[in-house]
C-alpha cells in the first residue's frame, strides 16, 4: 500500500525582494514593502511530503529520523535565522517564497532517497503558501 507522509518544520529568515536590473521606482512598484532596503523576515512553515510503499516490517514509508535529519542538516541549518539574500541559492535570483520552495525541493531531491519526494509546501505567513512538486 502506498501512503503519503507529511512533516512540518518551522524556520525564520529575512529577505529583501529586489532586482538590480530594475530602477528604484520599478522595484518599488513590483515588490512594494518587500523592497524595503533593510529587509524584513518571516516565520516560514515548511511541509515536506514524501510517498512510498509502507514497509510491512516497520509499518513506515520511511524512517522519520532520516527525514528529520536530512531536513535539519540540508534545509534548516542552511536557512534558519539567515538572510536569504546572502545565501548562494539566491546570489542570482530573488528570494521570493516561490523560488525558496523550488530551492528547497531541489536540495531535498538531491539529498533524500529513502522515499519519493512528492511535494514541498511553504507558508510564508498564515495567509500565503506555495507548493512545488518538481515540475
Amino acid at each position: 500500500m502506498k501512503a503519503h507522509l507529511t512533516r512540518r518544520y518551522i524556520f525564520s529568515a529575512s529577505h529583501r525582494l529586489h532586482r538590480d536590473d530594475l530602477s528604484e521606482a520599478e522595484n518599488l512598484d513590483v515588490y512594494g514593502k518587500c523592497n524595503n532596503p533593510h529587509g524584513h523576515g518571516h516565520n516560514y512553515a515548511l511541509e515536506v511530503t514524501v510517498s512510498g510503499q509502507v514497509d510491512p516490517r516497520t509499518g513506515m514509508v520511511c524512517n522519520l529520523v532520516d527525514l528529520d535529519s536530512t531536513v535539519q542538516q540540508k534545509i534548516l541549518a542552511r536557512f534558519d535565522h539567515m538572510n536569504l539574500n546572502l545565501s548562494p541559492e539566491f546570489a542570482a535570483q530573488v528570494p521570493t517564497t516561490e523560488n525558496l520552495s523550488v530551492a528547497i525541493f531541489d536540495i531535498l531531491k538531491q539529498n533524500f532517497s529513502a522515499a519519493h519526494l512528492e511535494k514541498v509546501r511553504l507558508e510564508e505567513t498564515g495567509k500565503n503558501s506555495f507548493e512545488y512538486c518538481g515540475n
Partner: protein
Amino acid sequence: MVYLTRKCEFSASHYYHNPEFTEEDNRRIFGKCANLNGHGHNYTLEVTVKGSVDPKTGFVVDLKQLKDILDREVMDALDHRHLNKEVPEFAHQIPTTENLAIAIWKRLESHLKIAMLHRVRLYELPDLFVDFYGEP
C-alpha cells in the same frame, strides 16, 4: 465533483515493536516508540469523500450518515483504546500512523455506500500526518 471533509479527534495508545527484530534493532529503528509500556497521541482524522451534488438536497453526502459511520467504525473502535492490544488490525501489524490511516480507510470503505472515499488524512501530531488515497 465536490469534495467534503469531515474532521474528528480520538486519543489512543500504542507502541512499535516487531518480534522478528532483535531488541537492539527495535530500539534502533523505532527509537522511543519501541517502549513496550506504550505511549499515546491525540489523533486528528480528516475524512474526505467526493461525489456529485444531489440536486434535490444540495448535498454530496448526508453528514449525519457519515458521522454515524465515523462514530461506529472509527471512534468507538479506536478512541481511548490501546491500538496494539485492542484493535484487531494491529495484532500482527505495527500501529504506525501509515498503517492506522490504511486501517481506517478499509474500515470506512466497506461501509461507505453513500459517497466515494477520496482521502484519509491522519495527524499523529500537528507537525506529522499521513495521507492515504486507497492506492495499492
